[in-house]
């Protein structure tokens, strides 16, 4: 294996990281405020890809499809939060986990009902087709688009959470919910807004992943497990952790694909298990 090939694969790994980051950041900001791991994020991701497929096929534009997925998954997210999760915020955590897990079952079958179980594909937008040679490796233009999207979403979330008034409010509410409520901030509405934002990130992740994967009802569960690895390695609830974790998982996974093509996933989880043995709370997480 030459160094040139390794570098090319690492670059592709970084673009996978960017795609993972979109999903993991949604999970992590929801956890940061709501203290809830949303297993149904898997379904929002899959729905994002399906919405993108349908709208892109109708309008012939990938961009319209992406925009529509973000809006529609946000609407689904709002319905989940308002209709179901709100009822059990004060219940045991285990019930919340079960509820979001049950949602995956429901959504997986609903997508099967609406779109069938056959794999679907979305055409690459013409402006992003083709590849450029980097050090002699042909790297698809789409990889750079993914890296750009992941980077800009990361920067946007950083500005929102740490450099804006809204971010200060969100962090305060995460620290002490009742006190923030007493200060006159509508915390239940803030929960909905953050959940909807996270859901939209999941949908965006699904939409822009759509052109480079096959769309199947199970796709969400397959990627969500890698995103779990990301936020576990990085530390649950930490944005920086999600960024570093997705870089580690993306690049490690891409290189694992070169070394043990059949068992790249196992390769990834061995790393996760090792990190957990040393730091069970993750690289940037708080001890719990």
């Amino acid at each position, binding site marked *: 294996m030459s160094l040139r090939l390794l570098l090319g694969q690492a670059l592709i790994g970084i673009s996978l990281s960017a795609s993972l980051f979109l999903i993991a950041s949604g999970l992590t900001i929801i*956890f940061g405020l709501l203290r809830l*791991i949303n*297993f149904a994020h898997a379904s929002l991701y899959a729905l994002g890809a399906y919405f993108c497929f349908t709208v892109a096929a109708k309008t012939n534009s990938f961009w319209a499809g992406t925009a529509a997925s973000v809006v529609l998954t946000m609407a689904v997210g709002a319905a989940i939060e308002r209709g*179901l999760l709100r*009822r*059990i915020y004060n219940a045991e*955590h*285990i*019930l919340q*986990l*079960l*509820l979001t*897990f*049950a*949602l*995956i*079952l*429901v959504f*997986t*079958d*609903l997508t*099967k*009902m609406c779109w069938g179980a056959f794999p679907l594909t979305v055409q690459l937008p013409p402006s992003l087709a083709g590849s450029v040679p980097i050090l002699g490796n042909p790297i698809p233009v789409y990889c750079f688009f993914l890296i750009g999207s992941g980077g800009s979403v990361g920067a946007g979330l950083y500005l929102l959470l740490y450099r804006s008034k809204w971010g200060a409010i969100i962090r305060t509410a995460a620290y002490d919910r009742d006190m923030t409520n007493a200060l006159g901030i509508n915390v239940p509405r803030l929960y909905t807004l953050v959940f909807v934002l996270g859901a939209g990130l999941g949908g965006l992740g699904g939409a822009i992943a759509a052109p480079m994967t096959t769309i199947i009802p199970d796709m969400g*569960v*397959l990627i969500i*497990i890698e995103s*779990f*690895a990301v936020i*576990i390695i990085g530390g*649950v609830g930490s944005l920086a952790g999600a960024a570093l974790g997705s870089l580690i998982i993306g690049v490690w996974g891409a290189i694992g694909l070169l070394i043990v093509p*059949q*068992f790249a*996933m*196992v390769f990834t*989880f061995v790393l*996760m*298990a090792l990190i*957990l*043995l040393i730091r*069970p709370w993750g690289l940037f997480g708080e001890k*719990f």
Partner: protein
Amino acid sequence: MWLLAVAILACLPQVLSKFYVILLGSILIYGLFAMSFNIQFGYTGLLSFGHAGLFAAGAYAAAYVLKHMPGSGISMYVALIFALGLSLALSAVIGAVCVRLSGWVFAMVTLAFGQVIYTILYKWRDVTGGDDGLYGIAVPKLILPGGMIDLSAGNNHYYLILLVVAVSVAVMRMVVRSPFGNTIQAIRDNQTRAQFIGLNVWNYKLGSFVLSGVFAGLAGALFSPFKGIASPELANWAFSANPVIMSLIGGTGFFVGPLVGALVYRLLEHFIALYTSYWMLCFGIVLIASVLSFRSGITPYLARGAARFYEAAFGKEAPE
């Protein structure tokens, strides 16, 4: 009470058709699977979304042995022992990584490990048969002290399952009533206090995880010879939903709850399958409803009904 239940289950094949005997056998296996899950979930407070991985490990271990040494009278014993050993080893390794993690992370990491087992079964074609699975497993003969019996004849296979499940349930009952069982329930109720009185909670949690994993593996080892196939779907995340739903339907706070849940669940699944192929949708809705409303499951209602029936029939207070 227990003997009565076993006696009824032993007599049922005499009155049921072959089809329902097979359904009943699979209900017993699912019941064992769900009860093993509930040792972790109901008794220790650990919610695993990857329990199917251990079930599948047992199923594949048994299928592998039966496929490679068919015909001999001891092959079923070897299969069961190999399945127990494999699920013991796997749950010890997975448990060692997982038990120190808190609720959320524990659920995520067990889901991940379940999918790792699924991937291995799916991709390691030489040993596991890939996406075809291991099929064409010969129904074994069994050497008993009284002589050789043929499991394919009559309802013998059903009786073997009943025997193994009944013994396993008895063992699990002993364990949850032992000091160990009391300790894991104490840890479930308040881990910090349990630590303060000097208990090594990680070892107890690991013990519970391994115990639960071994019985899941045993259930798997009964499953593949009975069905004649072990396929990778047994390890998939959707299969891990089974014990969760069965335990919740039956009630996680009751020792036999998951077994009752398995009965209701499998019968429902059987009838739902006649009308629609979207069982995940149906059970997702059942799961949401049970999370939002009846958290105790249906077992206490059934028990109250049975007690009332007993009082009406015999005119005295029912035993527990």
